[in-house]
């Protein structure tokens, strides 16, 4: 009856059925009564209203019955929810970084990906981390959702029960590209998962370190490498070009050299590129090392104008 | 519910003005209430840092200001009993005294704030930014709450000044002094809020 994509689906869906079921009974019953009264006691058919007699017992009756019903609803809501808060000790920990506007998932052995890859029938614990604003990790098929709050170590967990690929959506408004902050969770068989988990990182062979880093740090959520304008300016042809920036509201022309790029990363709001919003890019000082900045610059240098 | 219901023919209803004033005071209380809630939660989350930071505030300054405000509450209460006894002159003297206490309070506050700002503790200043987590919050709340309170002192003083002007014009009399009473209520509320601000900011170590 239930899809059972995760171990929570059944409890949640039972709660849905019970609450919506009771609600439907009331909705249909009350609507039917309304229509019935309007027809039966229409003033043509029933010209003289009967005087109202208050009925205390009736008042008690229709206070107590709904109270019992809603307490029942609460109970099933709680039962379906409780397992979500009891995290098994053996759950596989994955560190989730939610950032405007992309997800990244890091595993215990340092493996990193923008997709969430998990084995079937094994509990997985997600440690949620956000450097900028609120986000919310939502996997509809699994019936789980928890906000990612800067400064607060929220956790969630689930146990996938069916192999397949499911949507991950961001369910807390986080700015311009909120609706594009999507990812997928891939549920693999234990064997495939282990194969993936233990495989050597092939990325390093294909990409420059700066490029990988840019993916990990989710710079590419805001900066393209092909010249198209996203939230931030494109990196294409940036190096060595003339950039018009606003410093405290005053226009200035600057050559995009090493120093400028470094400053743009560590203190992006001191020199704001004209035509782009201030305050959107987070201050990366403390999160990115000198070496990493060098790698960025090396990579940006390769993105020349054609 | 032992209140009398006045018919709409009566044009002046002091009881209504008083109820209106009290209702307004409730909104003021809850305005500060929101800040007290923030204070309580943050104190709970950062209790050591709060105690540390509170050490920077001068208990002496705080105590003097508490006494000043309590005394100003007394003088305004006395001014109302003076007008009830048809002694407009004494009522005015008491109100002037209240204003003088308000001024002393503000001068005191000025020196206190300048000292803090001199130490770079105002939000956004360099020293403020280098404080350990929690202490910054304390000073932020300190400036926000005492600032808002000082703003209320000013508003209350203006209210009292208006009352003095009305007394001069004999618009407030023994039979019609509800405006003065309302000014008193407002002033006492400002006092009550300080009564809580004082221990919360100055007395916790």
């Amino acid at each position, binding site marked *: 009856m239930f899809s059972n994509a995760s171990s929570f689906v059944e409890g*949640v869906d039972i709660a849905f059925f019970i609450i919506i079921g009771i609600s439907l009974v009331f909705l249909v019953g009350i*609507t039917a009564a309304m229509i019935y009264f*309007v027809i039966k006691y229409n003033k043509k058919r029933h010209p003289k209203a009967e005087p109202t007699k208050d009925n205390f017992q009736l008042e008690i009756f229709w206070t107590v019955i709904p109270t019992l019903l809603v307490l029942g609803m609460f109970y099933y809501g709680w039962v379906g929810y409780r397992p979500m808060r009891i995290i098994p000790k053996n759950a596989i920990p994955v560190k989730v970084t939610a950032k405007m506007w992309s997800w990244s998932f890091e595993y215990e052995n340092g493996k990193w990906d923008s997709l969430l890859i998990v084995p079937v029938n094994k509990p997985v614990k997600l440690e949620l981390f956000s450097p900028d604003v609120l986000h919310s990790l939502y996997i509809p098929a699994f019936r789980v959702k928890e906000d990612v709050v800067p400064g607060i170590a929220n956790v969630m967990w689930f146990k996938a029960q069916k192999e397949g690929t499911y949507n991950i959506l961001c369910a807390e408004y986080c700015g311009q590209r909120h609706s594009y902050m999507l990812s997928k969770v891939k549920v693999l068989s234990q064997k495939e998962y282990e194969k993936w988990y233990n495989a050597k990182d092939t990325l390093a062979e294909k990409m420059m370190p700066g490029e990988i880093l840019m993916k990990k740090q989710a710079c590419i959520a805001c900066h393209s490498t092909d010249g198209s304008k996203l939230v931030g300016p494109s990196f294409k042809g940036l190096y060595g070009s003339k950039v018009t920036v606003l410093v405290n509201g005053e226009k200035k022309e600057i050559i995009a050299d090493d120093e400028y790029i470094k400053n743009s990363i560590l203190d992006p709001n001191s020199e704001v590129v004209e035509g782009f919003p201030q305050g959107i890019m987070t201050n990366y000082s403390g999160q990115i090392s000198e070496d990493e900045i060098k790698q960025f610059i090396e990579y940006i240098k390769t993105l020349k104008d054609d | 519910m032992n209140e009398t219901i006045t018919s709409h023919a009566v044009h002046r209803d002091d009881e209504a003005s008083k109820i209106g004033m009290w209702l307004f005071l409730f909104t003021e209380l809850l305005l500060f209430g929101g800040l007290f809630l923030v204070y309580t939660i943050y104190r709970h989350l950062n209790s050591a840092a709060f105690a540390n930071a509170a050490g920077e505030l001068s208990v002496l300054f705080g105590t003097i200001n508490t006494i000043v405000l309590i005394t100003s509450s007394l003088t305004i209460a006395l001014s109302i009993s003076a007008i009830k006894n048809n002694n407009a002159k004494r009522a005015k003297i008491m109100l002037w005294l209240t204003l003088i206490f308000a001024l002393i309070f503000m001068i005191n506050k000025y020196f206190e704030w300048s000292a803090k700002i001199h130490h770079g503790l105002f939000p956004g200043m360099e020293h403020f930014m280098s404080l350990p987590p929690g202490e910054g919050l304390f000073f932020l709340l300190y400036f926000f709450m005492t600032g808002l309170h000082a703003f209320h002192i000013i508003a209350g003083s203006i209210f009292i000044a208006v009352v003095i002007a009305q007394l001069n014009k004999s618009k407030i009399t023994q039979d019609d002094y509800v405006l003065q009473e309302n000014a008193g209520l407002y002033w006492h509320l400002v006092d009550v809020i300080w009564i809580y601000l004082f221990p919360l900011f100055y007395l916790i170590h």
Partner: protein
Amino acid sequence: MSTEQTALPADNFFNQGGKGLMSWLTTTDHKRIGLLYMYSIAIFFSVAVILGLLMRLELIAPGKTIMEASTYNKTFTLHGVIMIFLFIIPGIPAVFGNFFVPLLMGADDVAFPRLNLMSWYLYIIGAAIALSTLVFGEGSADTGWTFYAPYSVKTGTNVSTSVFAAFVLGFSSILTGLNFLTTIHRMRAPGMGWFDMPLYLWSTYATSWIQILATPIIGITLLMIIAERALGVGLFDPSLGGDPILYQHLFWIYSHPAVYIMILPAMGVVSEIIPVFSRRRMFGYKAIAFSSLAIAFVGYLVWGHHMFTSGMSGPARIIFSILTFLVAIPSAIKVFNWLATLNKGSIDLQPPLLYSLGFIFLFLIGGLTGLVNGALATNTHIHDTAFIVGHFHYVMFGGTGFGFFAAMHYWFPKMYGRMYNIKRATRAFWVTFIGFNILYFPMFILGLEGMPRRYYDYLPEFQGWQVVSTVGSWILVTGLIMMFVNIIRGARKGKPAGDDPWNGYTMEWETSSPPPLENFHQAPVFKKPTYED
């Protein structure tokens, strides 16, 4: 004006107290202030409606249809801000409350008429500030009407201005509530005890208490956001040891009670209309009166249900869930008593009753889906999805909105002394009602399928229901335009309605239509109504 002859009484408040714009802008007459509110609210409501329709148009297909993502985000924020702070919170209390609170209790005005005018000016100033973001500065806020930190502190758009507007509007709302409370305490006609008050007054009384005690909290919270933006560091900044979730607590401490500011007056209106059109006394008068107070009080205790997935502690989630379910009980009591009043009455299905029954049906759907929101397991799935959007449009628009329309059709003859076309009003109701359901019901399905809210773009599998919903929005507009055209025509050319066209029981029907400046020709004395025709 029309040339056709009118038999309106000459001494009505439109004629007395001066003519011309200035006499309106300086009036302290509660009836004129009520109308001032109505006209200004109608203007802002239309702006927000157009924004709503544009959003629907954007959502008809995935990808870009008519606007950019950043425009869409500003659009739903402004739509929400206007609808909440400019339309639905002041809606019934400021328009019908101002006009009818004194009339229902036989008073000549509210307790503080000048303060009343000031509330209106604050309202207009707040509205002007809110709308100014459209024209000036870096564009209107793009945070959603909830202004959640830290995004509201980081974004480059004009959040401070929007937030300040909400602050000013809050003050307007507080002063209105203060005025009504004092009026109800002090100005009832001789002979009218607390339990003789019409039920609308009870609901206004409860509403006003919420306005007084909850609004200051949002006021101060919004000031904190402004301070945080101005100083660059702030109270919700985790690097200082702050906590972004605390912002949500403060926001919802106000904004949940605020949803009862919205619905209680509508419930009061329905409690006035049902007895009149069933020709009998309200069943369970006291139960309804007390349930208003109960909703107001329990309403303070449930704000956490907006934060079930925010990272709140486990026990808090459980407590808030239980309390949320308890707040449904007083609403249930009201619904059952309304039904019991209809039972064995002599029902006359005039437009006001039709709108009231529409209210009950739509509020039922909205309220019952509120229960789905309130349970922990189900909330986890549907929080921040289209399901929530469906829920609150049903309660706010289907509930309060229809309550507003019911009040308009009920009290219209008293306000203007004329009657609208009954047949057209009935027809407009059905178009509106059907359009409404086609527009908003699909949102429940979308939400259950996992479509998040505030999404500019969406996965293609959601498109089917989005299209249905957009088509519904066009039907709804048609119905509403029919309704307003009929009302406006009625106000200008309708037949004189007489003092008491509906055979009402309450005191406003004792005076002439429209009422004279001082409301009653002689100082009225309250007599218990007899419900015999």
